[in-house]
Every structure is written in structure tokens, then in C-alpha cells.
């Protein structure tokens, strides 16, 4: 690759040390917005998605309408491309000029990410809830615990433990997708890199943004692996007993 005919030009366009050093501080500052969006979105998603998953797993004909709402929610937000949801919400809602509704595109872009990822994470939670054997529910109900108490103390704690690895996987995806907010206007890392790119006719700022994203996602990925590993070791240890 280094010996290819185009290498010098590519090296100049993408790996220019001078441009990298010049653009890094501003892109890093813009990256703080990505981190903020990620943190807020993650906290909301964890709760919202669990709510959706629980609603969807309510049994019986009484809860049929609620289940339908939960199903429509997950189908819609998993089905529409993330970039479209962001564009529609972040460009559309502020344009309505509704009073009492935030007009900030960051707010609406974050909301869009929350909705899309909640749909995915709700499915992860649901898989976890369904993986808990019905005999656990029978045992809890037979002791006189209500359906809600059974969910809260018996089903959900077991379900969440089982889905921590796939949950972390989705959050790694969310970290990357905070870059999509760029398309709605806010100056986050990707957009800031784009500004530098346009100013210098050089693509190195994108590499710079990529490095920043990696600096955040790699530790999280390693943490996920470590948690999975630890869980497996724990189970192996108790399996011997």
C-alpha cells in the first residue's frame, strides 16, 4: 500500500501531520458535544427501553392495545434510517415554532437518537425478559408477590444481567452515531472536521475525528469483553460446586 502509485498524494490528503496538529484542539472541543449527547441519550435510553420492553411483555388481552403501541414504536424506529429520523425531528420540529417546545437542533437530534436506540435496546431487554424461565414467575407469584413486584424483583434483575453484553454493544453503536447529529447542523466532532476539511482542502481532520471516536469506543469495547469474561468465569466457578 505504501508503495502504490497514489500513496504520496493520499498520505498528503489524509495523514498530514501539520493539519492534524492544527485541527485537533478544535475537533476535540467539538467532540465534547458528542460525549454529552451520548451520556444523556444513554441514560434516557436505559430507562425508556426497559419501559417499552416491559409494556410489550405484559400478558393477556387487557394489555393488547398497550402491546400494540410498544410494537409500533419498535417497528417504526428500527425501520426508519437513523439519519432520516434525525433530519425529520431536528429540522422539522423547530420549524413548527411551537411555544413551549425546545427549538434546539441538538435537543431534537438527541431525541431522535434516543427514540431509535430505545427501539433496539427494548428488543435486547425483551429477549432478556423472555429468557427468564416461566417457572421463576410462577415461584414469585406463588409467594403472593404481585405481577409488578415479580417483574421488579425477580424477572428484570435476571434479564438485565443476561443482556449486559449486547447492551454495551448497542451503546458502542450509539457513541459512533452521535456523529449523525452533524447532519442537523450542530457543530460536533464530524461537522467541525468537515469545516477544517473545507478550509484546507485536506481530509486529515476526518482522521483526527476518527481517532477521537476510537479513543472513546475502544475502552468501552474492552470493558464489555471484560464483563462477559468475568461473568463466564463466575459461572464456571459455581458450576464446579
Amino acid at each position: 500500500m505504501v508503495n502504490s502509485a497514489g500513496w504520496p498524494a493520499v498520505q498528503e490528503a489524509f495523514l498530514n501531520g501539520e493539519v492534524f496538529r492544527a485541527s485537533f484542539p478544535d475537533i476535540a472541543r467539538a467532540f465534547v458535544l458528542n460525549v454529552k449527547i451520548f451520556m444523556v441519550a444513554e441514560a434516557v435510553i436505559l430507562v425508556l427501553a426497559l419501559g417499552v420492553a416491559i409494556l410489550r411483555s405484559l400478558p393477556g388481552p387487557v394489555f393488547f392495545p398497550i402491546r400494540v403501541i410498544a410494537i409500533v414504536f419498535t417497528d417504526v424506529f428500527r425501520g426508519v434510517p437513523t439519519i432520516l429520523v434525525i433530519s425529520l425531528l431536528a429540522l422539522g420540529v423547530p420549524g413548527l415554532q411551537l411555544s413551549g417546545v425546545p427549538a434546539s437542533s441538538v435537543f431534537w437530534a438527541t431525541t431522535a437518537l434516543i427514540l431509535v436506540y430505545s427501539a433496539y435496546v427494548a428488543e435486547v431487554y425483551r429477549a432478556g425478559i423472555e429468557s427468564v424461565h416461566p417457572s421463576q414467575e410462577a415461584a414469585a407469584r406463588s409467594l403472593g408477590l404481585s405481577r409488578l413486584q415479580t417483574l421488579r424483583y425477580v424477572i428484570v434483575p435476571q434479564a438485565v444481567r443476561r443482556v449486559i453484553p449486547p447492551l454495551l454493544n448497542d451503546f458502542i453503536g450509539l457513541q459512533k452515531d452521535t456523529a449523525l447529529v452533524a447532519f442537523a447542523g450542530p457543530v460536533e466532532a464530524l461537522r467541525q472536521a468537515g469545516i477544517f476539511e473545507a478550509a484546507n482542502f485536506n481530509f486529515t481532520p476526518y482522521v483526527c475525528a476518527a481517532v477521537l471516536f476510537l479513543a472513546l469506543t475502544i475502552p468501552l469495547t474492552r470493558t464489555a469483553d471484560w464483563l462477559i469474561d468475568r461473568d463466564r468465569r463466575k459461572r464456571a466457578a459455581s458450576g464446579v460446586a
Partner: protein
Amino acid sequence: MTAAISIEGVHKSFGKVMVLKGVDVEVPESNAVCLIGASGSGKSTLLRCVNLLEPVDSGRILVHGDDITSYEVDANRVRRRIGIVFQAFNLFPHMNVLENVTLAPRKALKTPKRDAEARATELLARFGLADKRNEYPDRLSGGQQQRVAIVRALAMEPDIMLFDEVTSALDPELVGEVLGVIRDLAQTGMTMLIATHEMGFAREIADHVCFLDQGRILEQGPPERIFTAPEEPRTQEFLRRIIEAGRM
């Protein structure tokens, strides 16, 4: 005196399969009634109906004279009076023994944590589990797990205990310790309805034995008569097969 449990004409189907076809059983106060019969004869389903884990299709179940199968009944309240122990233990794997035992008293009865723990510790000690209170279920033997499950049910201070083939999932050498617990309970006068494959145990502990066959009580009576002089050919055949298998 009204019976602790009266089961009257209970029918139950799962889809097109009728599992219970009109079952009548009476369990007088402080009695132990054993349900025997082949797998699939409806023993477990009957117990699950008494605990309201399965709704009955028709017929009714009275507990101390109250119809627990009527629509107005609060199932959670009924279940607090009736403990059930399952074949597969069904302990909560994410909680240690003490948490397993105290969860329902604390959340369903709103017993303060300290009181619930004191009561649990007392019960665990009574059944030889005092040193296991901080262990997680998967560190315990099957027999210990099943004894914890019994303690967990007893912690709700039920009037009635249901046992659903509680030794069927145990290694043979662990069966004795669990049966010992049930024997203890019988001596304290606990009202019990016990589905079991342990014929020797049923014969020893039961005040009354019911033989279930294809969803009906085919024959019932005192254990001496059922085990030594059964009248129905199907009961005779069932007991003969049990004896041939060396289980009695």
C-alpha cells in the same frame, strides 16, 4: 368443621387436552393428603389450580370455606396463605438464601427487613441451613436448594402447603433430607396436599391417599387400604408397576 381445602368438580383443559375432568378432593385441617398417579395424570395441574397459578375452567376450590376461584378474589392474598414447593426448586438465582427467603415477606407482607431476617434465620436454623444463609442457590446441593424452597414458602406463614413432586429432581441420596422436612411439618400439624412418586413416604405420612388417573380421582381412601387392597384394576396395575420398578 369445614375442610381446609375442598376441591369440587374441577375441570381444566390446556387447548384441546382436558387434564382435569371433574376432580373432588377434601383436605381436612392438619391433614396430609397425598396425590399419587402416573406422570400426566393431572397431579401438578391440580396443585397449580389450588395455588391459582392456573385458572380452573369449571368447578370451584374452597379454602377454609371461602371460594378462591371466584372472580372477586385477590389472587395475591390467597397465595400468601398457600405455600407451594415445586419439583425444580425455582429458587431465585440472583439472590442468596436469605434474600430468597425474605423477599416475599418484605414485599408482599411489608414485614420490616429486620423482622423478616430474624424469622428467616430461625427457619433456616430449624431445617439445618443456618450456615447457608449467605450462599447463592447454585452453590447448594439439590437437597439443600429444595429445603431452602420449603423455608421460602414457610416464611410467608401459610396455613396450607402444597408439594409438587418435590423429590423427583433429586439424586436418590438427597431424597431423605427433603422428606424429613415434610415429615417434620406433618408433625407440627401443617395442612398439606402432596403430589408424590414416593409411595413408601406417602404410605407413612398420608392421612388420605388419592389415586389420579387421566384427570379423575379413580380411587381414594386411607393409605393402608389403597396400598394393600386397592379396588380399581388401574390402581392395582399402577402399584404393581411401582413395585416392579423397586420404588416401594
